């Protein structure tokens, strides 16, 4: 069909699958950063200081409403201007982790807000420390409502990793570009990258639904 060459497709498949591992690694590391940093952002908006809350809130809005690809360029190129050289991988992970931490902080915020006020009051009444209140009472209850959003952003970060190719991170898109450029054939690499993405993101979305239902059941909800 339309000059599709199976032999070429088979030839480049191992290279694309190799790059898929890098894509998955990038998504995993970026998500790890985002999960932790997002919690920091969410909790920083709950301090008694209104100035801290406002500043953090505005930072989150800023990160959320500007393009990720521009942020990737910013992190990658601004470092060297001030004498800090970042490798594409490090710059890419910082940028994508930071971007998604802003999204995840909103998810956590929604989850934390959904915990009834009585739970907080009970913690005060029992004289629990702030750390204990959060880690033993509030966060376990805030987690299940946050899971859907967290899962969506896990798939989301995976689908945004191709943007890392703009600074030369050797992930799937970069591999497809390289193959296309050296062989003057773009049909097979780009189509196969699309199929690989579909083959991962669709089952992943399904698995996340299953996992979410399982957690809810484990915690005796719904």
């Amino acid at each position, binding site marked *: 069909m339309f000059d599709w060459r199976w032999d070429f497709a088979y030839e480049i498949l191992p290279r694309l699958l190799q790059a898929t591992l890098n894509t998955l690694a990038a998504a995993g590391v970026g998500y790890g950063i985002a999960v932790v940093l997002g919690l920091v952002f969410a909790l920083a908006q709950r301090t008694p200081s209104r100035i801290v809350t406002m500043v953090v809130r505005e930072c989150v809005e800023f990160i959320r*409403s*500007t*393009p990720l690809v521009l*942020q990737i360029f*910013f992190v990658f*190129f*601004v470092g060297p*201007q001030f004498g800090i050289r970042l490798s594409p991988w490090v710059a890419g992970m910082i940028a994508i982790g930071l971007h998604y931490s802003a999204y995840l902080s909103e998810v956590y915020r929604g989850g934390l807000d959904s915990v009834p006020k009585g739970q907080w009051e009970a913690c005060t009444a029992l004289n629990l420390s702030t750390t204990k209140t959060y880690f033993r009472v509030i966060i376990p209850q805030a987690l299940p409502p946050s899971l859907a959003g967290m899962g969506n952003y896990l798939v989301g970060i995976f689908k945004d990793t191709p943007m890392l190719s703009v600074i030369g991170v050797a992930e799937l898109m970069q591999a497809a570009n390289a193959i296309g450029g050296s062989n003057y054939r773009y*049909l097979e690499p780009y189509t196969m990258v*699309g199929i690989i993405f579909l083959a991962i993101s669709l089952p992943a979305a399904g698995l996340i639904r299953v996992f979410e239902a399982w957690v809810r059941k484990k915690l005796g909800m719904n």
Partner: protein
Amino acid sequence: MSYWEFLAQNAPRYLDGTLVTIAQFFLSATLAILLALTAGLMKLSRNVAVRWTAGIYIEIFRGTSLLIQLYWIFFVLPLFGLTLDKFYAGFVAVGLNLGAYGAELVRGGIQSVPKGQWEAAYAISMSPAKRMYRIILPQALLNMLPPWGNLMIELLKATALVSLISVTDLMFEAKQINGSTFLSAQAFGTALIIYYIFARLIVTPFMRWLERVMARKLGRA
């Protein structure tokens, strides 16, 4: 060179880029809204074939990355005899991608309209088209406007990717300025601020205003 000198020197290029970004934003938003409405309604059809067609469109465009879709439309479609100019390829890709996300919002919005509204429209023997247009859609629209506000921000951000097929938008100009001045913090920082202003002071307030207007029109203000 101070930042103000930098800005004075490069302001025309930033302005040109911003105008292209605005054009890309409006064109892709229009396309996304039309596609979302069509696919969202098709997803609710009784006909299996219609439902599946919309489902395949939605899953393909939500399951892969916008960047892949953009490259595919720009580099691969010409092999099938359909060559799009980069400017068109840019907003078509963004519109197709965000339209798929919007379709799910349309479907959810329509399904959130209480069943009694459908029954009431049926009881006064409205035609299906009239029922959808006069009764269901206005209420669905009100329900789905808040998530559409987020989607519009996503769309604005997505237009930055068209710079990668060398549409001369804001992102592209920022890269060019970075290349010629080597002042990366200023070059990319200015573009970030312009995107932020556009999102926070224009798109978001407009969507909030639209929500208020719609709520008032439906007597729910």
